[in-house]
């Protein structure tokens, strides 16, 4: 059993990277727009389905389908913001949360009604499935996931901390009124955030598509892991979200192999409950506190 441990760790980190990517988009919306988006996982589901339709239905080349899916999802992020968030922007956070919960039910069921319930498969990014490094079979898809996740983390860090746009986004998040008085277009900032967050979600979707099946339920599952990752790492904390994602990926891969396969999905949540009981503000601490 121990012989497969390195392989399990590799796989766990690969899955964890997917959760991290999904979690990243989730954190971004919290930080920049103060929106807890329960439909975050549906961005991944829709991204994967768009790619599937382009690839199989329309016959677009693989990389074009990959990129088009991500770009189309950026546009969808804007539409989503306009329909689900914008009418409620002056209301309580509770109203917005419930509205995104509504969207998280609406979207998969629309896909279900139009595309049917049967899951589909999508080929991987590279024709070569992988290669051996010592005892580990390095799956190219998992490797791509990890590389792209790292790239997106770096990109997000640079945007938020090093660019004017990032400063504007942060300012909008902290105090919309003040930001608008300083000449920042709050509407534009919010739309950019939703678009970027949808891109991150879609990337997670199209990357995970070859690993899992493309299914109507995949968004809900991904979203749950992303939320849990976010809480484990510390609410609204970017490094925490990444770490949380990796922890959940590892926990369920190892748990499924060594403890129980049917309860695979439960391990991440058990860690979540444990973190909440022992260290409720997450491993890295919560960023946002209410002002008196």
């Amino acid at each position, binding site marked *: 059993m121990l012989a497969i441990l390195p392989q399990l760790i590799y796989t766990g980190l690969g899955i964890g990277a997917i959760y991290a990517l999904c979690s990243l988009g989730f954190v971004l919306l919290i930080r920049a727009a103060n929106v*807890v988006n*329960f439909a975050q996982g549906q961005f991944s589901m829709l991204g994967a389905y768009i790619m599937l339709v382009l690839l199989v239905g329309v016959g677009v080349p693989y990389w074009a389908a990959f990129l088009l899916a991500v770009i189309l999802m950026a546009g969808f992020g804007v539409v989503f913001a306009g*329909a*689900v968030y914008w*009418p*409620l922007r002056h*209301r*309580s*956070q*509770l*109203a917005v*949360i*419930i*509205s995104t*919960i*509504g*969207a*998280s*039910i*609406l*979207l998969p*069921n*629309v896909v*279900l*009604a139009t595309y049917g319930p049967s899951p589909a498969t999508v080929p991987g990014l590279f024709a070569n499935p992988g290669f051996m490094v010592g005892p580990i079979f390095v799956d190219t898809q998992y490797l791509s996931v990890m590389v792209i996740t790292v790239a997106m983390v770096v990109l997000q860090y640079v945007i938020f901390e090093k660019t004017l746009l990032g400063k504007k986004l942060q300012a909008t998040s902290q105090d919309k009124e003040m930001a608008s008085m300083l000449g920042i277009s709050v509407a534009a900032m919010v739309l950019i955030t939703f678009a970027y967050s949808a891109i991150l979600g879609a990337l997670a979707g199209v990357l995970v598509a070859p690993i899992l099946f493309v299914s109507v339920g995949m968004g*809900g599952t991904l979203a*749950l892991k992303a*939320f*849990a990752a976010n*809480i484990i790492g510390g*609410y609204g904390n970017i490094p925490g979200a990444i770490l949380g994602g990796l922890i959940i990926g590892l926990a369920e891969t190892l748990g499924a192999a060594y403890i129980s396969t*049917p*309860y695979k*999905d*439960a391990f991440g*949540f*058990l860690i*979540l*409950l444990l973190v*909440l*009981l022992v260290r*409720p*503000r997450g491993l890295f601490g*919560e960023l946002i506190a*209410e002002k*008196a």
Partner: protein
Amino acid sequence: MRASPARPVLLQAALWWRGLPATALALIGACILAAIAPDQNYYLNVVMQAVTYAIGVAGLVVVLGYCGQISLTQAGFFGMGAYVLAILTVHQGVPFFLAALAAMAICGLFGLLLGFASLRLGGHYLAMVTISFQVILTLVLTNWIGLTGGPDGVSGIPRPALLAGTHLYLGFCLVMLVLTVFYTWRLKTGRLGRAMQAVRDNELAAGTCGINIFRTKVISFGISAVLGGLGGALFAGAFSYVSPDQFTFDESIVMLTMALLGGVQSPFGAVLGTFTLIILPEWLRFLKQAYLAVYGAAVILIMIFMPEGVWGWASVRFGRMPGTPGEGAVAPLPLFAVQQSEDAAPVLQVTDLAMHFGGVKALDGVSFTVRRGAAHALIGPNGSGKTTFLNVISGLYRATSGSVRLGNATLDGLAAHERTRLGMTRTYQNIRVFRGMSVLENVMIGAERPGNDARTAPEVMARALAALDFVGLRAEAMQPVGALPYGHQRYVEIARALAGSPDLLLLDEPAAGLNSTEKQELSQLLCRLKGHGLTILVIEHDMKLIEAVADHITVLNFGKCIADDTPRAVLSHPDVIAAYLGEPQAA
């Protein structure tokens, strides 16, 4: 001065009786309805499902509607209740009623546990933890075959021997629904329900009104879990069969939609929403494929266009405004008459208080004393640390070092609600009233301060009315607080703080945002309070108000005390003049 004792007794009777006659009628109606229900299994099944679901959805009214916490696992508790009843009655031979009580107890226990884990922080944590719970529960129901029967579920669940007939059992369920609605409705207008709504509307202010926020949230979630368990147990008895696919996350969403559609603020809304969504799909069969998509869209549309739900919408438009309860004289606010003097006993003693935010020393060793009966003003230029000071004193921020005593008690390390219990109430610069409630309810929450001498419901009501009398808003008592102009909302906040009969009243820039007439009125109000001998610590910028009211002034600048004396001495103090007007230029 005492009001005639007859009034509170009448008030008490009115409070005790409210809803009881209607409930008795509804119980009779429920029995008649069950007796005359047509003898068709299909029809009876639909009604039975609606009745048991409605009990579960009423739980959502408590946790989401009253307390503002999102639970996404009502079907989880519903299913847990159903399974506990099924397993105990079928496998263990436990009598039905005992098993139903066990179902409610176990659900309540899980509710408290999950709430304890997740409610210390914001509302979204509960939402996520409840989804996780739902997922794990479904896994357990499907995979722990030895206990739950796995995907096949449990069948042959008995009903109580006396209520085995379908009509009798339906009558029993209807009676339980009526009792649930009555309990939930009474809860809303009681002390606990008001505390929940205060937490929902403004957590910070709820804490400084003496409400234990965490405990209130956990209890509300516990109640919702118990009601979920009750509904589920009755459901299991009704259909004699349970399986995991009946209690999935989708079903929790259906219950959420029911509550939102009907109106999450009222158990009547829950019943309305549940019956609508259970009976409607029977007519809209063509939707079967896409019904969840429609529910999802409905949730968004309801939030945008009808956030209060059908019942809430209708009761705003067609409901009548309830009359002011206990009209007529009430005992005025208790007098605090204490002659102010420089050697009166200290009420608030602050020693070396410091509050650092990273490298910023917002408070840097502040010490001063507020004496009983004083109208003590804390002034200082912008950014001098005044509001930080108030937030530290009232327990919203935790001091870096130093100590604070209120009377004989030390406040260090205490949470906001514990400090309030010891006799301190406050107002906020940017008004924090409970917007979902009436003016009277806002002030009643103030009167319900733990440690206040008004304890029973009629005493609380009388005290709240007296506080409203004092600020001149008695006539608006039943108005929703949001309908009042800004200046009046400030008075509501002051009345809320007064109704708690505090030893020390903290006012955070009470004149902010008021026009000059309103400022004058406020000044008179504060002078009247002072005349009553109430100890006041007021932060203010408006020097006219300070001069009219204060008999002692402390000046903060850059987090330090630069003066602490009588108004005359302070206002001519060179450091104070320098802080406000700048250093004199060297000639």
